[in-house]
């Protein structure tokens, strides 16, 4: 256990000792806050204190500059000479994920769903566990923490399962996401050189780039955790087969969605239950506004969160009406129609999130049906090789989504005869090295 903690500390130290020290300090704080909440007669007081401190840390590192630059702008508009200084801080790696887990831990103790961890080594191992450092999953302490007490022994089958997960994740990241990234970066980086339906294609490709990038990372993180003998939250479940926006958020970044459900939507909707259906609409709007803010300190993400909040609010209000409409269609037609509408919304929503500024969003949506420059639509400078390989990657993802009962590929490969299995491994490695983008690009979700 000490070695594992050391590995995590070394992992975090790559991004600077300053960030590591801050994370260690927050870990120490939450270790004692958990014990304090458990002992207190009135648990609400220490819980409030713990939540405020955690939120404050996130605010300082992630939102301070955005918030006070907006305040400065407002004051200058009003001709008031107040100038809040900007901070030049380096955000510790994974702090957004870290804080969510810390808040969840403290709340669970207050709700008596979790006992405070008394062993600091276990506690620090859980919080600093390096496979989930960069992009989660936002694992619940009650699920992951007990696993640090289990004795881990060498298990060949477990290790090979983890390695296959890592290979699949690498394939999605390097061959699919980063290939699609060339086209997406070109379009979104030079928006005003393009117009017309190419924006739809860029949004379409970005949706798959994001999925391959994020789910690829998750497979690698799960693979590393599996090798070490841990099981973590599965963050994706065929998101493009979602039949509603609500369903989409039950399939995409599941650990975050369920966190938001447990700690924001559920308490707010129950607190406002006397408002009837509007209590839930209010709760879902607040939930997604916070989700947008969590994703990034910018107006783009605030609007993106609101857009999703409005969509889910609409689905709550029209649930009965939509059910009666769908009864007029066959089950398959209703399902396919719902998947198509949800998928279009997903592309629009991610187009929104990918744009750099609100002005870019306006430019994209006002020019998407501008057909004045058809010759320039596909003249992007991105090679046909990248486009074809990226498109084949999209097709592969779609096939895996449409395939109703996808067999467990990991298990299927494990059960192949040894010669076939190792031939497959060699082929997979050659394929990734040959067609992957080995340039060391970062992960999209790590910025959140």
């Amino acid at each position: 256990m000490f070695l594992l903690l050391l590995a995590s500390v070394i992992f975090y130290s790559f991004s600077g000792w300053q960030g590591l020290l801050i994370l260690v300090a927050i870990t120490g704080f939450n270790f004692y806050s958990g014990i304090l909440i458990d002992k207190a007669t009135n648990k609400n007081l220490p819980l409030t204190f713990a939540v405020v401190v955690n939120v404050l840390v996130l605010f300082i590192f992630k939102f301070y500059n955005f918030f006070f630059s907006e305040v400065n702008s407002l004051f200058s508009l009003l001709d008031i000479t107040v100038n809040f200084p900007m901070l030049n801080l380096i955000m510790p790696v994974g702090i957004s994920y870290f804080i969510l887990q810390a808040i969840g831990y403290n709340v669970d103790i207050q709700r008596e769903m979790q006992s405070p961890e008394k062993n600091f080594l276990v506690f620090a191992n859980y919080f600093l566990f390096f496979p989930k450092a960069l992009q989660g999953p936002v694992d619940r302490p009650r699920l992951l923490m007990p696993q640090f007490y289990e004795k881990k022994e060498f298990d060949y089958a477990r290790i090979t399962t983890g390695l296959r997960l890592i290979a699949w994740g690498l394939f999605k990241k390097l061959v699919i996401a980063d290939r699609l990234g060339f086209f997406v970066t070109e379009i979104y980086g030079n928006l005003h050189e393009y117009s017309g339906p190419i924006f739809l294609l860029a949004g379409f490709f970005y949706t798959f780039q994001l999925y391959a990038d994020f789910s690829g990372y998750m497979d690698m993180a799960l693979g590393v955790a599996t090798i070490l003998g841990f099981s973590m939250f599965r963050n994706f479940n065929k998101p493009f087969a979602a039949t509603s926006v609500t369903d989409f958020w039950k399939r995409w970044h599941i650990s975050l969605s369920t966190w938001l459900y447990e700690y924001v939507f559920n308490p707010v909707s129950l607190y406002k239950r006397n408002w009837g259906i509007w209590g839930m609409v209010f709760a879902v709007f607040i939930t997604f506004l916070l989700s947008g803010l969590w994703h990034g300190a910018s107006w783009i993400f605030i609007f993106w969160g609101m857009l999703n909040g409005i969509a889910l609010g609409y689905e709550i209000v029209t649930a009965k009406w939509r059910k009666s409409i769908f009864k007029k269609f066959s089950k398959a037609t209703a399902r396919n129609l719902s998947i198509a509408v949800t998928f279009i919304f997903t592309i629009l929503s991610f187009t929104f999130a990918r744009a750099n500024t609100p002005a870019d969003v306006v430019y994209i949506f006002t020019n998407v049906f501008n057909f004045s420059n058809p010759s320039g639509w596909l003249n992007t400078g991105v090679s046909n090789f990248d486009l074809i390989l990226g498109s084949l990657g999209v097709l592969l993802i779609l096939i895996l989504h449409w395939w109703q009962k996808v067999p467990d590929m990991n298990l299927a490969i494990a059960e192949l005869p040894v010669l076939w299995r190792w031939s497959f491994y060699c082929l997979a490695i050659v394929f990734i090295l040959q067609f992957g983008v080995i340039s060391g690009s970062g992960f999209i979700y790590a910025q959140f």
Partner: protein
Amino acid sequence: MSHIEILDQINAIFRRVFENDSLQIQMETSADDVDEWDSLNHTVMIVEVEKHFNIKFKLKEVLSFQNVGDMVNIIHSKVTSA
């Protein structure tokens, strides 16, 4: 009012809220066992149960419900102490 009586009365509320006339709940029944029991219907059901028994759950109580039995126990303690 006994636990069984409370369960019977809750069953009628569940059937109405979840629009399922053949639904038969037990003390161990949880949201995983009923298709229609989503977050939307959960809140509606809580409001209906509160109205029916003329009680008010605390937020912490509602959040602690793991199954129907947990809710029945709290209703029982509230109606007997009233």
